[in-house]
């Protein structure tokens, strides 16, 4: 992996933040030239803050998550800066990243059914996460696993400890994954679509659990999702990504009250709401552009109803309110020349 750390503008002040991503770009070499999966993405997460990373499939959300975890494929080229608790992660060595993963930066996966090893008991898989990062006895690791299983609401953890994953329901398996994330008391949790695979009622329980843990432990959470309903429920701030770039970021209330990027507006319009007539759902016309080769202008322009001549150039990030930034010419002096 090619790495080139660039110190952020306020690198010294970022010590108080759990996570500070500055100018992150990730590109893959391909037969048709470099594919820019993530381009100049910046956002920060304070401790005990829940930040939503929102966008369509392929918008680069998961690539951002993999960059933070140091799990990008070897052929990926990463530039920019990722500071975690003041420590630069871009260019950190593999063993250091392994030590942070599952320990101080935990992950909650989208699909616990395929993500848990079917041949090991759920308890062993949590205890293993303890022993991967600390030299403790098997008994201690087991006790910690039992404690977190109880904390996430698994009834009778002691009798469940030896159960393989297939004996648990989907919601229970997601609780196991959350327990594994909590067991080493992380500073930051990256939750990648944690409720997508679950029934609505279970979704609500899992989200409530995440919020409770944030309140009790002060853990910072990056919530990756395409579900704006989930965002509205749990996030403090939202980062909207489109085709590898940040389109808009804002406190959650400001985003829902005054969406300022045409893509955010379109996303909100495509959200089903109660009492809506059938067929009333708006879809965003067109598809995400091909990210191979040079993309100098606004990446959303091809699908945007408001596009004008200036959209040929990349829009700057303009501040429209307290902590509310938008990358669109509409708020940066108009789309006309």
């Amino acid at each position, binding site marked *: 992996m090619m790495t080139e750390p660039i110190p952020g503008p306020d690198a010294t002040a970022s010590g108080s933040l759990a996570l500070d991503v500055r100018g992150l770009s990730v590109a893959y070499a391909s037969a048709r030239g470099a594919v820019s999966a993530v381009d100049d993405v910046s956002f920060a997460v304070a401790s005990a803050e829940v930040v939503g990373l929102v966008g369509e499939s392929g918008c680069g959300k998961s690539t951002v998550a993999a960059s933070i*975890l140091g*799990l990008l494929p070897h052929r990926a080229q990463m530039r920019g800066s990722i500071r975690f608790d003041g420590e630069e992660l871009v260019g950190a060595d593999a063993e250091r990243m*392994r*030590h*942070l*993963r*599952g*320990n101080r930066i*935990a*992950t909650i*996966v989208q*699909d616990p059914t*395929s*993500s*848990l*090893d*079917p*041949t*090991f*008991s759920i308890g062993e898989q949590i205890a*293993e*996460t303890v022993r*991967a*990062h600390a030299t403790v006895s098997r008994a201690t690791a087991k006790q910690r696993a039992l404690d977190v299983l109880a904390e996430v609401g698994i009834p009778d953890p002691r009798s469940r400890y*030896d159960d*393989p994953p*297939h*004996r648990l329901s989907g919601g229970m398996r997601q609780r196991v994954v959350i327990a*594994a994330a909590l067991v080493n008391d992380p500073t930051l949790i990256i939750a990648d679509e944690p409720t997508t695979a679950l029934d609505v009622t279970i979704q609500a329980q899992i989200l409530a659990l995440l919020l409770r843990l944030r309140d009790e432990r002060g853990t910072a959470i990056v919530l990756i999702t395409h579900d704006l309903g989930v965002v509205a429920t749990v996030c403090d701030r939202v980062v909207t990504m489109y085709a590898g770039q940040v389109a808009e970021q804002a406190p959650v209330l400001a985003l829902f009250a005054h969406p300022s990027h045409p893509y955010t507006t379109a996303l909100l319009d495509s959200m089903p709401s109660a009492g809506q007539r059938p067929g009333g759902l708006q879809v965003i016309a067109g598809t995400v552009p091909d990210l191979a080769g040079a993309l100098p202008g606004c990446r959303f322009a091809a699908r945007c109803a408001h596009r004008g001549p200036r959209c040929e150039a990349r829009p700057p990030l303009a501040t429209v309110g307290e902590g509310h930034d938008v990358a669109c010419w509409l708020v940066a002096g108009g789309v006309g020349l």
Partner: protein
Amino acid sequence: MSERLRFAGRRLLITIPVLFVLSVFVFLLIHLVPGDPVRTMLGFRATPENIARIRGELGLDRPLLAQYGTWLNNLVHGDLGRDYVSGASLTSLLRTSLPVTLELTSLSMVLATLVGVPLGVLAASRGRGWRSGTEGFVIAGISIPDFWLGIMLVLLFTGTLAWLPPSGYVKLTDDVARNLRYMVLPVLTLVIGETAYIARTARSAVEEALTKPFVGYLRAKGVAEKSIVFRHALRNAGVPIATVIGIQFGVLLGGSIVIEYAFGLPGVGKLTVVAINQRNYTVVQGGVLVLAAMFILVNLFVELMIGVIDPRVADGAGA
């Protein structure tokens, strides 16, 4: 845990009808011989008195079902009949020959597993050197026939190098070191092919396991790569590996018949081959029964192991 016990109980119960069917086939063996088995057995000694005497002793003049009943009853009581050439009881013949075969096959199986499984895992998880090296070994090991390999090994180790005896046997209980010297070549002959099959299965099964989503999640939890490969991927690959070991045990038993004969090991295989040549059917019956029972029991053990390796199998949840 109770699910596992129930699973083990079910497997044990299934083995009973399998053993029953085996006993029927082995019993019928003597009746499958074209013509009169007693006349064939006796050859030039087939005087009418001899024929009548042997027929009476074998009970061949009684109804088939009654014959089977007597045979099975004797079998359950450890009486497999009598060798009509030497006059010895089959039980005593098997008591001396079975340990030889057990030693040969279990040494071969254990060695092949201990070498083949790690080789396959390394080929699946390390660089191209391990992969292509293993690939070459697998192709060679699978293609070379046992009997030819045996001859070549004898030529090399006893002919050219003069390190090892070409054939013969000393009991394990008499002299362990000399026993093992006689075992080296036959075991080596059997082990190479077995190792190749096991390594090939282990490689592809571990390779497949490493593409599963749980591997990415283990990395995200910071679990060390060595543990991901040797604990998680290997255990997930365990069902196909154990299955192949069970099947290959049958191949190994077949191979041991040839190998025992070629290396002069007085095992069940050699006993059976010699008996076939002498048309000594009761001995053939006993040898086949013992070899087939070994195969069934080893595969029962493999099935029980699979239930331990993958809890979904024990639960009947489908892997």
